[in-house]
């Protein structure tokens, strides 16, 4: 039957496109798994920042080595993904890329105390920061979510730094996160994943504020020149 043949033809062609799609996905999945493992290793290394001050620079150095490995992975990923189909397969590396954005931003903050820009993060991963019609890049949303992850981690660090007796760090963290918070408010977020993650930022901010407040009412904050002297007060409820 002639019509049947046409239908057969249509379905065979579609099956072929499905097959080649599956093959590409398989390759991408394998690479993403490797990259993911490296990122988990890096996360584990960096846990030391919460309990051992002296270990921080060492951990940063080790993590930098892992970034180099991840960069190799991204290089292969870039080759595996057809240049036009970045967003077709985006799901596969979205999470792991967000984690890398976070890790890189964290390491850079620990090292020099500044915010890693979109370009810097992309450069460390060996990919382009610019979204073009074709090609592999670091998506702006993934980068921003990485920054939100960073804020959560820093809120934890603020608490642990105080436990360690480091009263300077919470202030530094507070200033940094506040600035990020102000930055995120400039974005017009719609009701998507980024927005949901951003909504959680206020809890991190609150936590950090409370730490700084606790320190300030106990006069534990390091003195700056222009700060007025505050009278001592003991708090019963905190």
């Amino acid at each position, binding site marked *: 039957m002639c*019509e*049947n043949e*046409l*239908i*057969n*033809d*249509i*379905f065979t*062609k*579609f*099956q072929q*496109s*499905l*097959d080649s*799609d*599956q093959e590409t996905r398989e390759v991408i999945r394998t690479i993403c798994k490797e990259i993911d493992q490296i990122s988990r290793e890096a996360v584990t290394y960096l846990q030391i920042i919460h309990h051992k001050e002296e270990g921080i620079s060492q951990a940063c150095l080790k993590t930098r080595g892992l970034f180099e490995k991840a960069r190799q992975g991204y290089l292969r990923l870039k080759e595996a993904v057809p240049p*036009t*189909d*970045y*967003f*077709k397969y*985006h799901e596969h590396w979205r999470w792991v890329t967000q984690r890398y954005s976070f890790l890189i931003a964290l390491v850079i903050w620990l090292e020099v105390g500044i*915010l890693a*820009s*979109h370009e810097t993060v992309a450069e460390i991963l060996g990919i382009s920061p610019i*979204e*073009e*019609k*074709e090609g592999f890049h670091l998506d*702006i*949303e993934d*980068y*921003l979510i990485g920054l939100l992850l960073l804020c959560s981690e820093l809120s934890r660090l603020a608490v642990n730094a105080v436990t360690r007796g480091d009263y300077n760090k919470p202030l530094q963290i*507070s*200033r940094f996160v*506040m*600035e*990020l918070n*102000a*930055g*995120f408010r*400039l*974005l*017009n*977020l*719609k009701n998507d994943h980024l927005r949901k993650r951003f909504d959680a930022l206020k809890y991190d*901010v*609150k936590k950090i*504020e*409370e730490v*700084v*407040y606790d320190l*300030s*009412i106990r006069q534990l904050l390091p003195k700056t020149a222009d700060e007025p002297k*505050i*009278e001592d*007060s003991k708090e019963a*409820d*905190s």
Partner: protein
Amino acid sequence: MSGRGRGYRGNRNRNQQTLSSVARETALSLPADSPVLAMFKTAARQLNERQDRHERLVKLSRDITIESKRIIFLLHSAITKEATEKAVAEANDRLNKLIKGPFKCIGLELEKSPAYLHSRAVTAGFQEFIEAKTLCSLMDKGVLITWDEVQKEMQYTVKDSADDGDTERAVVTMLTPTDYMLGVADLTGELMRRAVNSISSGDSQECFQSCQYVRDLYTGFLGLFGIGKELARKMNTTRNNVAKVELAVYALKVRGGEAPPTLLIQQPPMTDWEDSTHHSDDEGYY
């Protein structure tokens, strides 16, 4: 703790540090033109552009959906042969207008941005259009229009007027094979409706033909593996369509000889045409 504490302490001693004053001081100490904020301003611009484009595409897609549904309705409305021919001609005309209008706009809109970034914005319109297009081609020529043929129709040449003469560039509105297949899955619903309608108009030949076509398509879908989530979901509807159309043909065979065709009139209720978001209404009734 913070809310209660703030008010209480604030009233008791103005000089004292409060949670909100700590926060305010930090916020005020931020420089207005820091590199961080500049970075966020760039990001905001990028995100806004993306969102605006998305909204425009959703609107175009919605326009296409509505017009496609109307075209399908038009194709179903004809009963006599002459009326059908007229309806098909008009439908072809309107489909071409869609290709030259909204589809071209989508192509231009997406010209500079990566493929698939906005595929979710336009998929509904594409599917509905394919449904109308394939139904029309079936009624017109008796064959299903293929993906390549539709894709070929969506290639445009755009003229740029520049100082040093006009330049032409090619713009393609990409139709993904998956969107095409999703549209074809919806087509089974329309064919079922057509089969049932043709019983009521007494054209049993037409009915058998449509029924066979639904079967063939269903067979094709059964043979696929590794289909996406969306297509898998549509398979249920397709299966129901096959069952319904086969039952209708059975009824026609068994009882058709006993009663005049007019007694079998059972028009599907068509109240939900404007509902563009759901695909489940494509199942139809009989």
